[in-house]
């Protein structure tokens, strides 16, 4: 089902990541920060593994912001923002459950007509993803900025009424 904007929509923030792998846990850590702000009309969810659950989580939710770690070679903590209704995430299978990661689930949702009407990706560049490592200082600094950006996206009336105006940045 393709999501559509409506007056009673509940917004959703989903943090994805593995907190046992250092900076890879940043998506969930950002989601926890957003939860702490108790934004009205905003649900917050965290996904550790098996991203296929996203298809159910974001059903009837609008807008949806997906927060995850990214690895592009930029400085750790750098933010990247992508309108997933208009752009694709790079499909990188390694280190995902049976090679099935967030990018694959987004594309599966697109193929099945099950993407939310507004879906924005906020990525935080990782540094150290070592087993058992804490989130690095650079990424910790980027986390607050990421949470601020997610909160701002949620406050933007434009994102609720006009998915096409979600900005592409980074």
């Amino acid at each position, binding site marked *: 089902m393709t999501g559509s904007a409506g007056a009673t929509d509940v917004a959703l923030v989903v943090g994805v990541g593995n907190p*046992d792998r250092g900076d890879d846990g940043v998506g969930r850590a950002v989601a926890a920060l957003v939860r702490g702000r108790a934004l009205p009309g905003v649900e917050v969810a965290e996904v*550790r*593994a*098996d991203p*296929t*659950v996203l*298809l*159910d989580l974001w059903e009837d939710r609008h807008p949806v912001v997906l927060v995850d770690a990214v690895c592009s070679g930029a400085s750790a903590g750098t933010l990247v923002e992508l309108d997933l209704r208009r752009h694709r995430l790079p*499909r990188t*299978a*390694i280190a995902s*459950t*049976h*090679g*099935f990661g967030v990018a*694959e689930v987004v*594309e*599966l949702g697109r*193929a*099945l007509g099950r993407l939310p009407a507004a879906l924005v990706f906020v990525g935080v560049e990782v540094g150290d993803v070592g087993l058992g490592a804490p989130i690095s200082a650079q990424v910790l600094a980027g986390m607050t900025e990421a949470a601020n950006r997610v909160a701002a996206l949620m406050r933007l009336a434009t994102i609720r009424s006009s998915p096409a105006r979600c900005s592409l940045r980074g």
Partner: protein
Amino acid sequence: MTHKLTGDQLLTTDPLARVEGEGAMTVRVRGGSVTDVELRIFEPPRFFEAFLRGRAYTEPPDITARICGICPVAYQMSSCLAIEQVCGVRVDGPLRDLRRLLYCGEWIESHALHIYLLHAPDFLGFDGVVDMAPHAPEAVERGLRLKRVGNEVMTLVGGRSIHPVNVRVGGFYRVPTRAELRTLREPLLHAREDALETVRWVSGFDFPDFEQHQEYLALRSPDSYAIEGGSFVSSSGIAFESADFDLHVREEHVARSNALHARLHGVGSYVVGPMARYTINHDALSPLALEAAAAAGLGATCRNPFRSIIVRAVELVYACDEALRIVAGWEPPSQPAVEVTPRAGVGTGATEAPRGVIWHRYRLAGDGTIRDARIVPPTSQNQASIEEDMRSFVQDRLDLPTDELTRQCEQAIRNYDPCISCATHFLHLHVERA
């Protein structure tokens, strides 16, 4: 670029997609004959057995669940059985039923994932499920529904679907009420219909004409299709208890792989998993699962690894049937767990993970401290057989263009639903035609 290879050649797949972990397959062809096949696993060793040393006897279910996000219940159940054996405790009745129900949830989730998201695209000529979805949306949605129901069972019984937190040595931290388990009935009834449709769907695929006659090894239980326990039985009639696994199975290190290769004494390589279970235990399937298997053209055994997708689908039907049976008869026990008092000794436990039997052994000190631990997962047991499959499979297909041969080799490896993260203790494919 597509090109045929002649003479001495090398074919590689690097990396192999839609499998878990990191590895590579190399097939060497010299003078028109396959001379060597190597499944190399270079996902680093994960040292879980060493992590367990010095920990308390109560910790293996939580620690070993972290080995795999697909089959955590298998690790939890085998570890519980082993610790309970050391301590002279046997968990039966409703608590064993609840373990079996949790395990059914894992089978449903894992088999649906493998059939629909990973393996079916191979048979239908797609690069993956994302490419398959626009052409077979109803099928993909069916797979996702099945997976969701498996997750629901695991969440209700295990506390959450990934790395369940409600399992403990001796049973559970909390058992569900009758009313709670009844909420699973409707979803499971729908899932069973979806599972039957899955059998019909996959049985219509085209299967390569390819048979293997390796030894099958699975658990067998006197009263049911073995899942959460049983005794070892092989297709040639070798039978032994979990405690004697070490006497019958030898693990060998091979330099190219971070996973050990297992060999059955007097036999050599062997296969665990759905085809082995079906061959050894099909008489214990439910009438509905047997009927579905017969309608799909499965006989008393299955020797074509490509048809393993049908066997998984039949097991999906069975897992739904079993889950429904347990839900219907559920009477919560007075206590959520049997008390387990530590004592010195050695214990073993074996259960049927979705991709094959998984064996654990622990040695405890008198105060319950773990002195040593051994874990033998299914993929390391299947590695040698995967190599043998590839050797004969490639030999008969040397005239194929390299890219098509590589594609078919990847499909053949996925017949085993390998979980290389578990075995390292994943995959890039090389076919060398030198």
